């Protein structure tokens, strides 16, 4: 049988136990739905390269992720948003250089806190577009920027009222808009009374981010009847979380989504093919010189999730090395970050400095591959060739 021919039932030689096992597993998946529970378990047991972890062990990892990473992560966002909101209040009350510095400092902390958990893209953050309202990026066609500029130049008072602001375009009510208020063209007016409208708009944005973050936090805080219960007590009637694997997949998906986003949204567009084709203005938070802060927080967040969830404890014994391998890459990323000095806008356009970012891209690819192509299938979560997004 050539490699490209089809393996029919008759073509499975009995002396190839691996194939038979796969085929048996495959058959198990084909019965009509009402008979699913038993065969599904048989399927997992018959594949030596897949975890033998129990439902409870898998759900423990889900709990760890929720309690040790997601909940504290959002609590930090709420705290940072309170600080940022307070700092904007102070700035509007007393427009002065020092208060502007404090507001900018608080904004940086908020960016840091948000980036730490930004790749959790399920649960309360998905309701009412909360995630996109906190950060809408990339704004590829610059529509959001134009909307923010129009609000400021037209002194659109409705943008200073929390309720009205929340109903506007997602691009004018979150971190991107607040960055423009604090660092965009004309931001120095915030030091004087001339910047009053701009400041009140920024105040409303900070307040909006605070209420969005609080809503997300509250959603995760519920032990009964909320997302935490749905994920840690999956039921066949739940469209999203029918089994422990569904919940675990969501947690592992944070890494896969995260590294993909870092590669496709954060690094690649700005880096271009060379320093000549680099587009530094495509870096997230380039105005505030927080691109590196956000990127580093992204990595730290994913590393914290890896540690807190203890997801590697589910690996089959023969593949336990993957834990060290992943940790090694996280450390490589950290060492690389230590070598980079901001601003990233300069780094991407410098032949020499780019090397470290190029290396970071390699680390991202390596981590992405380890999570998507190794850890995920070893946990029996491989989404398969067909189950990818959209197509």
């Amino acid at each position, binding site marked *: 049988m050539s490699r490209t021919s089809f393996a029919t039932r008759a073509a499975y030689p009995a002396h190839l136990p691996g194939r038979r096992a796969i085929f048996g597993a495959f058959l198990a998946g084909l019965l009509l739905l009402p008979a699913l529970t038993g065969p599904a378990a048989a399927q997992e047991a018959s594949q030596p390269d897949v975890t033998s972890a129990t439902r409870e062990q898998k759900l423990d990892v889900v709990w760890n992720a929720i309690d040790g990473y997601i909940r504290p992560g959002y609590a930090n966002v709420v705290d940072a948003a309170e600080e940022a909101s307070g700092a904007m209040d102070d700035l509007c009350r007393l427009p002065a250089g020092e208060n502007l510095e404090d507001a900018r400092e608080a904004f940086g902390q908020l960016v840091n806190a948000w980036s730490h958990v930004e790749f959790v893209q399920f649960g309360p953050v998905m309701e009412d577009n909360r995630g996109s309202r906190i950060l809408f990026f990339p704004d590829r066609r610059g529509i959001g920027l134009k909307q923010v500029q129009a609000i400021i130049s037209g002194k659109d008072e409705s943008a200073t009222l929390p309720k009205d602001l929340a109903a506007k375009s997602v691009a004018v009510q979150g971190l991107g808009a607040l960055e423009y208020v604090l660092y965009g063209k004309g931001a120095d007016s915030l030091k004087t009374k001339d910047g009053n409208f701009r400041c009140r708009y920024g105040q409303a944005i900070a307040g909006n981010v605070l209420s969005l973050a609080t809503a997300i936090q509250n959603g995760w805080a519920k032990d009964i009847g909320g997302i935490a219960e749905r994920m840690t007590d999956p039921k066949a009637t739940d469209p999203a979380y029918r089994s422990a694997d569904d919940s675990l997949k969501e947690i592992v998906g944070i890494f896969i989504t995260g590294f*993909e986003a870092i590669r496709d949204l954060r690094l690649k567009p700005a880096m271009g093919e060379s320093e000549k084709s680099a587009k530094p203005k495509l870096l997230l938070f380039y105005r505030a010189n927080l691109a590196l802060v956000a990127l580093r927080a992204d990595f730290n967040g994913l590393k914290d999730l890896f540690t807190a969830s203890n997801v590697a404890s589910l690996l089959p014994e023969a593949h336990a090395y993957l834990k060290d391998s992943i940790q090694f890459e996280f450390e490589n990323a950290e060492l690389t970050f230590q070598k980079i000095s901001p601003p990233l806008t300069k780094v991407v356009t410098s032949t020499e400095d780019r090397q470290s970012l190029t290396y970071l891209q390699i680390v991202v690819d390596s981590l992405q591959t380890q999570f998507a192509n190794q850890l995920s299938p070893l946990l029996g979560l491989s989404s398969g060739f067909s189950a990818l997004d959209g197509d």
Partner: protein
Amino acid sequence: MRLFDKNTMVKSGAIDRRSFMLGAGAAFAAGLSPRAAAAFDRADALFGASCLRPDGRFGCAVFTDRGELVSSLALPDRGHDVAFDPRSGRAVVFARRPRTFAIVFDPVSGETIRTLTSPEGRHYFGHGFFSPDGRLMYATEHDFDAARGLVAVYDVEAGYTRIGEFDAHGMDTHEALLMPDGETIVIANGGIETHPDYGRQMLNIPTMEPSIVFLDRKTGDLIDKQLLPKALHKLSLHHIAIDAQNRVWFGGQYQGAASDTPPLVGYARAGEPLTLSEFRPAELASLSNYIGSVAASRDGERIAVSSPVGGTLMIIEAKTGNVLKRFALKDGCGLAPDGPDFLATSGKGAVLRLEEDDAPTLADLEWDNHILAL
């Protein structure tokens, strides 16, 4: 050959084996190797699909409903759906987005006849079809800087020259089919903005606006555009199939919160608002808010939908919208009519004739999302 006869039209290019043998199929069968010819002879029909081959290369394969390989060709990158012109006996495999190639090939030998490249600033969305006379080929494409979906028109006789493009009146133009009248194109616009600079990342979830659009295939004139109700604007519509009553069934992929349980399947008719099917909670749950493929039976009386995410295949009675049967198939996605029933494939290599107690065949490769009955 009355390819678009109301009674036989189920999906662009789909014909039964008898009609196929009367037309280009005779030449097709004559060109097969003895083993492939024997496979073909036993088969009720032949199918084409993109795949990932065991050698690690992306490819496209022609196979029987028993999973026997008739031919295959390597592709430069991942392919998506296949279109077939029974008059010339040629097939085209389109690149999966955001890639820029489409390959015209001979399904008998697997030989590449021509490689098409989308023009500068465009990429393929992965689907297409031929005009009933085989003279024109239509492909869904993306004008990505403008985030505008298109249906491009290719002149087959002029060596597949791209002779024009129609505005698809929406973003993320995915599957397009020819209606049984042979004159109207129906399009599923997924509504999601992407750009090759950002890989496959979705850039406009808060404002996405999926739609079903009907165009005149000769002029590109807009005949009708139907949107989902506002509360369902995150239900991306990518896949469609046409039933016996000319209703265009669609399957959605929900981009909103997982706690939502939106309807996922419905049908469109030009000039009428979209109709959504109601499923029982357990049926809906098994689809995991994601439909990967939609197909109609040959008689157009039944619609099959698949959810590779939920590992579920479902057959629906077109007349009533009721669920007739459910099957579990891990990563099952590809669907096509096969005799009176359906054939399904999975990303794990399964080739399965639904409605039969037969054991499925496990191919030595991974199937992409769609199969086309040649």
